[in-house]
Each structure stands twice: as C-alpha cells, then as structure tokens.
C-alpha cells in the first residue's frame, strides 16, 4: 500500500467526517485559551471566530472570516477538529481556510453575505456545514455539496425559539413525505425548490441525507436537550458558553446534557449551579433588518 494510491475529499469522507461529530457539542471560541476550555469540557470540535455572534450583533459593521493567525493558533492549541466560518458565497475566504487546513468550513449567515449565490462546495476537499430554516433550504445546500446541515436559529440571541422552529419545520416536512408517490414528490421538489433525488432520499430515510445539528440560540443544558429530543444529531453552541458567567461549568454541563438528553435525572444534575447563562435577546423583538436567519436563500 503506497500513499499515492489514496483518494481525498470524496463525498463519503466529507459526510463521514460530519458523522463523527454526532452526539457532540461544537463550541464557538475566539482564542486558543477558550479552545482549550472547550476541549477539556468534552467538545467534539471548536468553531474558530473573531467574535462570538452576540458581539458581532453589537459591533455592527461587516463581519468577515476570522484572522487566519487566530485560526492557526487555535489549531495548534487543540487536537479536536477546528472549524471556521466564511461569508455566504465567499469562495476565496473558503480557499484560504482550506489552505490553513481547517477541518470543516461553515458558510454562515452570521457573517455578512458576499454573494447572492452560495459557494460551490463540491469543488473543495474540506467539508462544509451550512445553515437552513426549512427542508428546501437544507436540500439546496446539500445539492451544492454541504456535508452537514444545521438549523439557522437566531444566532447571538441566546433565545432557542427560532432553532426549535427550524428543527420542527425540517422534521415536519420530512414526515409529510411519508407514503407519497414519486409523482407527488416531484411536485414537492418543485414547490420547495429542491432536487428531486434528495427529496426522494428524505422520504425513504425519513431524515436528511446528511448529519443535522441544532444551532442558533442554544444557551443552557435544557436547550441542548430540547434540540436533541427534537431529533438533532448534535448541537452548536455559539455565544451561550463564553457569554455565560462561568464558561467552564456551562460547557461541561451542555456536553453532559447532550449525552443524557433523554434522562431527566441526569439533566437536572447537569443544570444545577451553573451561574448566570448569557443574558440574551428575545428573538421575537428583533426588527426586520436585525435577523441573521434571513441571510442566504
């Protein structure tokens, strides 16, 4: 067996990488020190960012890919996978992240969109995760090559309601496909602007064809359990950890909650003595220009 006979960046490898994250918590971090805290708490991966979504909201201006130097320092600090975000459609930022050697790229609505088209993710060796609010959006991203999907929720609010809504919409749409004839599916595919073969796969598997995480507003162990019980394969926690009073404790507690999501006794244990969670914003009070989930299509 010689190394030159290897095949890189196949669909199986990309989707397989996402599968290894299942049952895990992926945490937003902005420094190597935070990355180490996340790893020690049992995170399966970290998302390297310039600022967490709650601060991006506050700061305003154009939110871009993080400084490569910070990302490289975070890669050096931990052994778990490191992910990073690019602006929607910004394939040059994605090329830079691939050159750095990040393990997964999040084409994210949390950053300021760069194009009305999403990145052609099939051209990359590194796998992508993308946000979605409904089944059509999820399947369009998968068609473009996303190896993993997450709910958009409403990032940086600490309010789980939008993540819940998106998870329900996706799950409900998939359940409604059950028992449909192929010709009925082709109408669904047209209506939700999704690829027919992918809709067919959803009907037959009764789930998305790729790993589906919850994200956007998860701030407590109970939030994480809620999303897992609704069928999420795992959770992303953005501002919820490092905007809480005691990040180390909150991080471990959310990992515990994901592992014991269906055990109320263990959830209770995980929920005691955490200090203040992030303060947050009621997502229902955000005006039209203030929501991040409406970015992307």
């Amino acid at each position: 067996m010689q190394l030159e006979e290897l095949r890189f960046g196949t669909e199986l490898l990309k989707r397989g990488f996402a599968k290894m994250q299942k049952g895990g918590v992926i945490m937003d971090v902005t420094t190597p020190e935070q990355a180490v805290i996340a790893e020690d708490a049992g995170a399966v991966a970290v998302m390297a960012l310039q600022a967490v979504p709650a601060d991006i909201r506050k700061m305003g201006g154009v939110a871009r890919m993080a400084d490569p130097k910070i990302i490289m320092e975070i890669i050096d600090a931990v052994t778990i996978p490191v992910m990073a975000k690019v602006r929607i459609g910004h394939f040059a930022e994605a090329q830079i992240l691939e050159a750095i050697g990040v393990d997964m790229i999040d084409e994210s609505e949390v950053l300021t969109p760069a194009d009305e088209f999403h990145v052609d993710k099939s051209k990359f060796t590194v796998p992508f995760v993308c946000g979605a609010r409904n089944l059509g959006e999820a399947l369009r991203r998968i068609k473009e090559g996303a190896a993993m999907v997450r709910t958009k929720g409403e990032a940086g609010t600490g309010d789980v309601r939008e993540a819940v809504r998106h998870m329900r919409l996706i799950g409900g749409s998939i359940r409604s496909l059950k028992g449909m004839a192929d010709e009925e599916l082709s109408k669904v595919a047209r209506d939700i602007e999704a690829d027919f073969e992918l809709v067919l796969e959803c009907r037959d598997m009764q789930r998305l064809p790729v790993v589906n995480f919850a994200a956007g507003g998860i701030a407590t162990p109970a939030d994480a359990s809620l999303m897992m019980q609704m069928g999420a394969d795992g959770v992303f926690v953005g501002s919820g950890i490092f905007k809480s009073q005691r990040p180390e404790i909150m991080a471990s507690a959310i990992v515990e909650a994901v592992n014991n999501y269906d055990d109320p006794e263990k959830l209770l244990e995980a929920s005691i003595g955490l200090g203040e969670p992030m303060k947050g914003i009621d997502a229902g009070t955000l005006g039209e220009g203030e929501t991040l989930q409406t970015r992307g299509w």
Partner: protein
Amino acid sequence: MAFQGDVSEHVRAMEVGLGSEGSVVEVRRGGIVPGCDGIVLPGGESTTIARHLARTGVGDEVAAAAMAGVPIMATCAGLIVISKEIVEETRFLPLGLLDVRVTRNAFGSQRESFEADLEVAGFDSPYRGVFIRAPAIVGWGAGVEPLAMIEEVAVAARQENLLGLAFHPELTADLRFHEVFLEMI
C-alpha cells in the same frame, strides 16, 4: 458504546451482520456492559469518548470485559481509546487493552482524510478503507498481529479478542471486518 460518534452506522452494520442471531444495545451508562457478548467502540472524538467512559465508569467495565475475553471491535477513535499508549497525549489516558502505540491524526487534518484499497491478511481481495482524521499504529507488542499496513504503519491489528481498526468499516457496505468480529464471539 453510544456516547458519541457514528453510532447509528455501527448499529445498522452490526444488525445486518447479526441477522436474527442477536441484538445490539446502545450503552450510554454503567451496568449494561457486563451483560454483553461483544463490544464495539465506534469512531468519533477520542477525547470526548474517553471523558464519557471515565465519568460513567463504563471504561472500567469495558476493561474488565476485555480481560475476561469478551471480543471488542474498536474503530478509529475507539482504537485510540483501547490502545496501550498514545504518542504525545496528555489530555487523557487510554484503557491500555490493545498492546499498541498509536499516533492520533497520524495522516493530518480532514483535508488529508482519504480512502484507500488495503491488502488485508486473510481477505482474498482488497478492502476499501475509509480514513477520517485517522490514527495509525506505530508500534506493537509480540502478541499483536498487524492485519493491514500503509507503508510502515499498521492500520488494522488483532490481539486475541481485541480488533483495532484505524478506519471505518461501518461507513461502507463491505462487512468483512464485522464478520471477523462476529466469528470471535
């Protein structure tokens, strides 16, 4: 072990392999392992899985079962967890069951993850290995038989009732390693 990782893929592959001759249970807490005839440690994040094994006491149950001769199939992160020694690892201690030295992420990051056709001892045709941020076995004791190699490192090895694989047999339809494991039971 259903703490974290590609558990459902392992369950499905094992159910196909077993047919009607057994059942698969998902273990996320103590007390279940002592009643099992075989144990599978899936792929995932080894630091996370090791943490759950230690916290719940299931790690000790797995070690006791291994000593008692219960067959174990450990893939990728699982291989790291059952190894005797991890090169340059201070974050967690492996269970020390399989007498091998492993290097984590031996081939690089996800960009360097790969598929390769392996020559496997005992198989009459190549086996497609799926390596995802995979470890490699860089040293092994006299009781360990390396089953497949990539250049000078081993990527599959067996020591009596323990089967360690650096790749993911649960991600392909080729169930030959599952058959090897089931024959050990």
